[in-house]
């Protein structure tokens, strides 16, 4: 299955600033997914990033706050913009582990973000 390199692994940021998180996959994948895990909570899907088209955002998430880039089939970035303490979470990227969803999904190791 695919191997994902996600960075940074953690960061502490000032409110009002932005942070860009990168995910690099060792193989070409059609869809990449970005999730948020708030402290003590489960994972919530932020958006699906498709190469060559705009990301598809889930309810409650908007492009101005979480812009996503997908320049090719192995790379994606998620930016958390104009941060506030409520954005303190773990952010994870994910890809399907095989050609279909039945293969399961592989996750990056996550970015632990603290906003002060």
């Amino acid at each position, binding site marked *: 299955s695919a191997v994902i390199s996600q960075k940074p692994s953690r960061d502490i940021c000032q409110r009002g600033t932005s942070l860009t998180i990168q995910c690099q996959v060792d193989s070409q994948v059609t869809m990449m*997914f970005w999730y948020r895990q708030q402290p003590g*909570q489960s994972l919530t899907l932020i958006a699906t990033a498709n190469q060559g088209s705009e990301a598809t955002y889930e309810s409650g998430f908007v492009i101005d706050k979480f812009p996503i880039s997908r320049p090719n089939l192995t790379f994606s970035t998620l930016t958390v913009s104009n941060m506030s303490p409520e954005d303190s979470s773990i952010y*994870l990227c994910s890809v399907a582990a095989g050609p279909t969803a039945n293969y399961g999904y592989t996750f990056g*190791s*996550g970015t632990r973000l603290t906003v002060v």
Partner: protein
Amino acid sequence: AQSVTQLDSHVSVSEGTPVLLRCNYSSSYSPSLFWYVQHPNKGLQLLLKYTSAATLVKGINGFEAEFKKSETSFHLTKPSAHMSDAAEYFCVVSEVDSSYKLIFGSGTRLLVRP
């Protein structure tokens, strides 16, 4: 719309005793179901998956789960708990529609007592 309910937020067992983590799902399609484990400060690891083949699914580290369509359940079991099993466990559903997105349960924290 699909959903996942993990019936216990915390489960505590003694080392060497059986583990049961309960999960019920709701899906309008034929779902794919997964169990993931998250150890403290670690990433998510796939334990096992059900994809409409055998209803009893065996995973890594001695875990298994049984898909019961009549009960809409996908409970995770292990015959004998080990201290290293202490972690957060997520039951996850994916519908094979155009989105392939995952819906996560709220998680069950497994505590293993020596």
